[in-house]
């Protein structure tokens, strides 16, 4: 087994770190840079920032936050939310991002993945899919941070992303996001074996067992975690899961023979 990555996901609205349930009802928890530096000191492997409103209002206030939040942090930083042009990517890289995450723009203009991967290198371009379980039990792709369904077959889209040269893929479960119920296992079963690039799962991880079982039983490369870490840092009891710090999560994984960096 290779070393698994534990990623802290920081959702940003304006100047604040926010977190909701099912990507909605966003609650302000603190400043993004306080969290990023805290997680860095607690041995997180990577940090991902998502601007939750950039794409909706067509603006991008992330540059300043990324610069502040990645200062003196020597681990990879990925940034997504409202990335629409090659110039957006260049600016984010200049602000301190190592990788940039596409979602809405990639669905609207799939060739943009090829374009961006050619220009900045495949490993710099990640594609995130926000998916949600529909009333007919099917899965749909969402854009604008989970606010709007996009008419595209999600399983075909997963294949297409890889062919177009994305470096990694993030699969974010809206139906599990913030719930602390664990990742959407039915969805994982449907995509199993179809992913040839590094795979990051996001949404629903609420305790140690959720993370451990997912890593142990699947071919996932990285787990992206928000509430589980945030609520541990701010000592807030309203989260339904069992919060813990990145370093404690990793120590427990290592005890259970999962390979992690410490």
């Amino acid at each position, binding site marked *: 087994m290779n070393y698994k990555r534990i990623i802290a996901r920081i959702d940003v609205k304006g100047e604040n770190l926010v977190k909701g349930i099912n990507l909605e009802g966003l609650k302000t928890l603190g400043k993004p840079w306080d969290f990023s530096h805290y997680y860095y000191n607690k041995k997180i492997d990577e940090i991902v920032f998502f601007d939750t409103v950039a794409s909706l209002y067509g603006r991008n206030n992330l540059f300043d936050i990324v610069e502040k939040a990645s200062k*003196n942090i020597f*681990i990879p930083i990925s940034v997504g939310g409202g990335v629409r042009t090659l110039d957006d990517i260049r600016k984010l890289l200049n602000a301190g991002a190592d990788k940039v995450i596409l979602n809405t723009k990639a669905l609207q203009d799939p060739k943009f993945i090829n374009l961006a991967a050619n220009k900045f*290198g*495949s*490993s710099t371009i990640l594609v995130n899919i926000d998916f949600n379980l529909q009333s007919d039990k099917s899965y749909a792709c969402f854009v604008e941070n989970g606010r709007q369904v996009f008419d595209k077959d999600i399983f075909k889209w997963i294949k297409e992303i890889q062919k177009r040269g994305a*470096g990694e893929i993030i699969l974010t479960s809206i139906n599990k996001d913030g719930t602390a119920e664990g990742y959407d296992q039915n969805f994982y079963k449907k995509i199993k074996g179809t992913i040839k690039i*590094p*795979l990051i799962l996001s949404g629903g991880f609420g305790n140690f067992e959720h993370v451990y079982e997912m890593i142990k039983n699947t071919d996932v490369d990285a787990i992206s975690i928000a509430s589980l870490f945030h609520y541990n840092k701010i000592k807030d009891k309203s989260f339904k899961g069992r919060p813990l710090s990145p370093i404690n999560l990793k120590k427990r994984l290592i005890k259970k023979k999962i390979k992690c960096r410490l």
Partner: protein
Amino acid sequence: MPIIKKNIAILDYGFGNIFKIKQAVEYNGFICTLITDLKDIDEYDALILPGVGSFPEGMKRLNKIKAKEKILEFVKKKKLLGICLGMQLLLEKGEEIKLTKGLGLIPGKVVRFPKNIRAHVGWSKVSIDKKIKHPIQNKNNNFFYFTHQFIVKTKKKFEYGTTNFSSIKFTTIIRKNNVYGVQFHPENSDKNGAKLIGQILNDH
């Protein structure tokens, strides 16, 4: 006598995030300057060649600024550190997309991982040869961050570090005289990585 800080140049030829590398260089107390061509390269004490992306694209951009001759001249006296694609470009040729000539500073070539293996993205241990002075002699703490799909093949005598990933062992630190290369991203490898940059640029 005043302490004169070394001035390290990073060649910015349009790829990825070089600001992280700058930050890691400055962590060691060096002055760091981003340059977009090699006209004034003699003013600097060492050169870092970064890079993410494909081998042919990397060489295309280097050839555009006529990098090869200037680098060959530079490394006669001063150090060069290639990072990730910047390391791969030091070799004689690359097999990514189409067979492409590299800078040829170190004998060997760049080949693909077997097709059935996902790209190597994440932390792995590096066994660092004693020839490289590194503060991390503790074998449990020699993690570095990687992101690549291609690996270098060179002669044993130029191999200064190796890594195991998906049951494949490959070269991850190379050196020939003043020319060094690391497959991983030291700027994204926590303080270990930043310190390694300092060691390479200072001590040898």
